[in-house]
């Protein structure tokens, strides 16, 4: 699991250190830096699969990505993973002169091994992940090689999770769209392809997957018994989603097309599809509250939390959510929440809600979302005035 992200001089993140848990919720006003945090993860993920020259160009050119407040000569993206009490870190440094460096540290106080990486090449970490690693021949780099190999070996699945980090901004209308069935279907960031992903799960070798998905859906929305994916008439290979409901007359179950299902049902089904599809990677969800009745927000939060711990789904998948909804936030714990603010001089500042002065005392009376709504980010972080 990604334990920490440290970003320096990247976009509005001048020097931001953010700790992540299995389920992390970012709150803050528009333009505070929430998206930049997700962008930092996206860029790091790309360095795991593409040559650096292909990444840092066009919209992602150095000059667009670097902090603009002062003259900076480099920016750095660093991820940290827990290894017992120690934290192992991997840092990518990019200078204005297009000089790249990878820094590997095996523990908090240990040596930092540095690789210089040519722009045209990929990172040494990517070489490792892709099986194209060529060992160093110079003495000093042999130790660094060893450190990198050890780092990769210990956090292989975590690093692969970084490679593909789709940012889901799910739209219920897109979730309802019909889709051609594909063996390797994945959910699109706005929700297209949900039907194809469900079809992949239903036709997969493990029949229990769909049973568990339907059970979790039924627990969240008791009127729903299951799902069915009938073919669309006249469109070969294309399917649509229907929900199987209890019959109020105690007769056989009835089905309704997803066009008549609630937005909440669509959203929860999509999250379950993500949880049970064996794609690697963390799940970044932007504003899951959109289009949802407030009474469904608790189920959404509980579902995402269960996905993050593996209580729902095949394996635990780390979840990061951004929200503008105090109602959604009311269902979170302060330990799960990071308050993102923007300061003109210091750029983005991230504060864990659990660090807010007196937060547990305040939570005896107020909800997490209420505190945010009534106080705003700054007053929340600064605490009581004398």
């Amino acid at each position: 699991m990604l334990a920490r992200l440290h970003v320096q001089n990247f976009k509005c993140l001048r020097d931001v250190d953010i700790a992540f848990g299995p389920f992390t919720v970012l709150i803050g006003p528009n333009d505070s830096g929430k998206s930049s945090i997700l962008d930092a993860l996206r860029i790091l993920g790309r360095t795991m699969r593409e040559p650096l020259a292909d990444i840092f160009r066009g919209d992602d050119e150095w000059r667009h990505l670097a902090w603009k407040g002062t003259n900076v000569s480099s920016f750095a993206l660093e991820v940290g993973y827990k290894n017992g009490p120690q934290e192992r870190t991997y840092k990518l440094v990019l200078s204005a002169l297009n000089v790249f460096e990878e820094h590997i540290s095996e523990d908090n106080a240990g040596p930092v091994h540095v690789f210089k990486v040519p722009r045209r090449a990929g990172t040494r970490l990517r070489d490792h992940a892709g099986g194209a690693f060529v060992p160093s021949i110079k003495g000093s780099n042999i130790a660094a090689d060893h450190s990198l190999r050890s780092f990769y070996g210990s956090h292989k699945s975590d690093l692969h999770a970084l490679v593909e980090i789709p940012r889901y901004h799910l739209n219920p209308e897109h979730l309802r769209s019909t889709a051609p069935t594909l063996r390797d279907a994945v959910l699109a960031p706005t929700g297209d392809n949900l039907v194809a992903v469900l079809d992949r799960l239903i036709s997969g070798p493990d029949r229990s997957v769909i049973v568990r998905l339907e059970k979790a859906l039924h627990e969240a929305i008791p009127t729903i018994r299951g799902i069915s994916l009938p073919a669309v008439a006249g469109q070969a290979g294309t399917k649509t989603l229907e929900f199987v409901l209890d019959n109020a007359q105690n007769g056989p179950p009835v089905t309704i097309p997803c066009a008549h299902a609630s937005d909440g049902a669509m959203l929860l089904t999509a999250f379950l599809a993500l949880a049970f599809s064996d794609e690697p990677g963390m799940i970044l969800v932007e504003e899951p509250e959109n289009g949802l009745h407030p009474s469904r927000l608790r189920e959404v939060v509980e579902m995402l939390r269960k996905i993050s711990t593996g209580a729902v789904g095949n394996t635990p998948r780390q979840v990061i959510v951004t929200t503008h909804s105090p109602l959604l936030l009311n269902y979170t714990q302060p330990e799960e929440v990071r308050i993102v603010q923007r300061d003109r001089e210091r750029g983005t500042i991230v504060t864990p809600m659990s660090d807010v002065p007196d937060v547990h005392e305040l939570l005896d009376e107020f909800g997490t979302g209420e505190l945010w709504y009534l106080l705003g980010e700054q007053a929340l972080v600064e605490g009581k005035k004398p």
Partner: protein
Amino acid sequence: MKRVLFVGDGKHDIGVPDWPTDEPFPARGVVPHLAERVAAVDRAHSLAMPWSHPRLSRFQPKNRAQRTRGYEAKVRAAMLQIERGVLRVDGLVCVVDEDNDPERRNLPDVLHVHASERCPIAAGVAVRSIEAWTLGARTALAQALRTKVDMVEKTCPSSSVEELYEGAGDRSRRPKHILQRLADELARMKDSLELREEIASLTDPDELCKACPIGFAPFAVAVRAAFGPPPVVVGSTP
């Protein structure tokens, strides 16, 4: 002099913003003027919010150990914002109309329990509506209408102003109607926020305490206890 946040029920109590805003607005109306008459309250630099303001709304989960409800919950929301510096004032003055709910008379006791050093609270109940705090100030009413107290007395019902009620079947016992009739018949004016503010600013607190012993008198004591007595201006009438 203390800047405070006034929370009340409507235009005549605490004013309304001059522009559409979700923020607290400069305090106007009867309550701020009366508060200034009885205590060290800086009315001109105080703020106001109606009870219905979104910044007082609560949507707390039910499982909180110290969950509060209704007016109490709204007061706690206001206090939180004052204590954390979101609302830059020194305390809270809140007034509710009793309307047809006698249980509201207990509200000041319930709210005063929450007062803190950083956020003193003065709460009051207008019995049975805020118009009593205007109609009870007969001398000020006469002054503002440029007439004599006798004339005001003749036009007002003889019973206590704290018995007048907007829901009364007899129109002549509805306080808003009485105020409008006074303004119209004695001064060819319309009842307005400005008129009520003028009356409040001329009000003799002792006279009003006698006229409104259930509502205004304890409120005046509470405001003075929370914010101290008004400064004595040399040459002014005590």
